[in-house]
């Protein structure tokens, strides 16, 4: 089993090619998170959006993983238990709204927030399936990062402080 280091300063996530395949989409899921960096799972097919999301979220200090369809995303979420799943609605196999509903119905993912980030003006549908936030495309990095920060802040208990810097191995 290989070990995947996420989120370090030299992480290649931010340099992911715009159109090329992500070899880590199918990588084994044994993960170490130095510094307790929050994990964000992004479900997105558009290579430009993926590239820019990775760049800006990495720059903001988050570790980013990707899935290209809803079924893969649900499996990865159960393995990674990310702090946030950011999903487009229009993704294959299991759409973003169905994915959100599945995450919200899974007790093991109670700590995972869902941000619907879509080209569709579907905020009411996002609310109906229990999404924690809705953002409309195009990607505006400040709005994206501020929303992510707000969602993470809402999930971190004020006291006692969460253990930091201890590797989390799953």
């Amino acid at each position: 089993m290989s070990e995947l280091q996420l989120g370090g300063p030299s992480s290649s996530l931010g340099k992911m090619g715009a159109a090329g395949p992500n070899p880590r989409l199918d990588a084994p899921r044994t993960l170490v998170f130095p510094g307790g960096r929050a994990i964000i799972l992004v479900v997105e097919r558009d290579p430009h959006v993926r590239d820019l999301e990775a760049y800006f979220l990495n720059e903001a200090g988050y570790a980013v993983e990707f899935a290209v369809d809803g079924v893969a995303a649900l499996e990865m979420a159960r393995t990674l238990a990310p702090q946030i799943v950011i999903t487009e609605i229009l993704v294959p196999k299991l759409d973003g709204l169905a994915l959100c509903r599945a995450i919200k119905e899974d007790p093991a993912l109670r700590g995972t927030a869902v941000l619907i980030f879509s080209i569709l003006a579907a905020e009411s549908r996002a609310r109906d399936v229990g999404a924690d936030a809705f953002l409309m495309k195009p990607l505006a990095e400040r709005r994206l990062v501020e929303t992510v920060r707000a969602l993470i802040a809402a999930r971190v208990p004020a006291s006692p402080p969460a253990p930091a810097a201890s590797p989390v191995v799953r």
Partner: protein
Amino acid sequence: MTIPVIGGQPASLDGGAPATQFPRVRTGNSQADEVLGGGFPSNSINIVMGQPGTGKTIFAEQLLFENAGADRASVFITTLSEPLTKAVTYAQRFQFFDVRKLGTEIQYHDLGAALAADGPAVIVPWLTDIIKTSRPKIIIIDSFRAIHDLGTSVQEIRRLVAELAGLLSAYDVTTFLLGEYTSNDVQRFPEFAIGDGIVELARSSLSSRDERFFRVLKLRGSAYREGQHAFRITEDGLALYPRLVSPRIPENYHPHLERVPTGVDGLDAMVGGGLWSGSTTLLVGPTGSGKTTVALQFALEGVRRGEHSLYVHFQENPSQLRRAIDGLGMSADQAIARGLSLRYESPVEMQIDSIIVDIFERIRDGGVRRLVVDAIGDLVTAASDSQRLHDYLYALVQHFTVHNVTSVLALESGSGGTNAVDVAHRFSYMSDNVLQLDLRGEERTKRTLRIVKTRNSDHDPDVRELAIRAGGARIV
């Protein structure tokens, strides 16, 4: 549950602005924004096309400076058609240029060398890097048309354009691709298929001067104003005159039923007690028949009654007109102080759109109760497109009615083989009343006035003498 709704456009879960209302990128020119339905949609890709010298770069740079802000940069990229130094150097002539914004809020980049060395393939990675490092809200590429000259195949350019559209749609940036495109290019170049907006700037020669036109060919999700809109290039950038269209008559509109005295003794009785308020009267006659005198008396009568009168003139220069006013019982200075506005335009340099839009804006802003145009024949002479002028005048007259402005349009007959009746027929569709002035007698020294037509009113059908003496004209 309330969840945060934040996005590239206003959206609310609680009944706020509908999500389909796109924010707009303003051009820095309020008239252009009006034509565009508020500006370009945010996050759109737009093409600004036109032959060299039509004003594309100026239009784009005005927009660039208009949108400069400390929050996010705006980026101007030159390619192979114009060196970066020229784009910056010439922009400094305009009022919108602000050197303090350069380098921070506004960034100029030269992609020409990289393009020349490595071809069109450098564009998308280069722009991706710009987006990551500068987070621009506006990207302008001047010229994108020139990139076609570097492509080795149609397929290469098509792939480039598709990739570019993907990148520029993914990020919250509004893009403008400038180019010396012709109308044929619209059908064959792939950027026109991915463009959300297409705007054309054109220039045509008219006698000793040029006319420039701004036209929106396409603007997704926008109620833009169709047709050609004239513009000039001034030190403020583009001065654009939106094409005047007829107003929508309000459902609660009722014609005004007051009579407006003409200021000419005996004339009110001939038209049933004065002109209807909000009506338009055509004053047709040959040179020397008294049109200007009658029209001035109409305007001055309004001033005497405390009404704002606007007199638009093209033939007499301001000094000549002031002398004419002085001979009508009120000094020009006094008349102006009491509410007479004079607006003079040389018939040689006349830009019809600017005059008509100026008149429209004055009546829209309120206050004007009487208006004279002396003479609309000068507008006809200066017009490159007579049908367009007639449409304009018709729309203008409709605005007079809605705004309850009583107007007199002087029109010279006798030139170009036209007589008064022919001319009156050509313009009568836009007028409520037609008054024909003439010169009779062997020496053509006897002035006459005849009512050819009045709308919704009885009138005197006889030919009457119009005497012009010290103090003005009167019906004998």
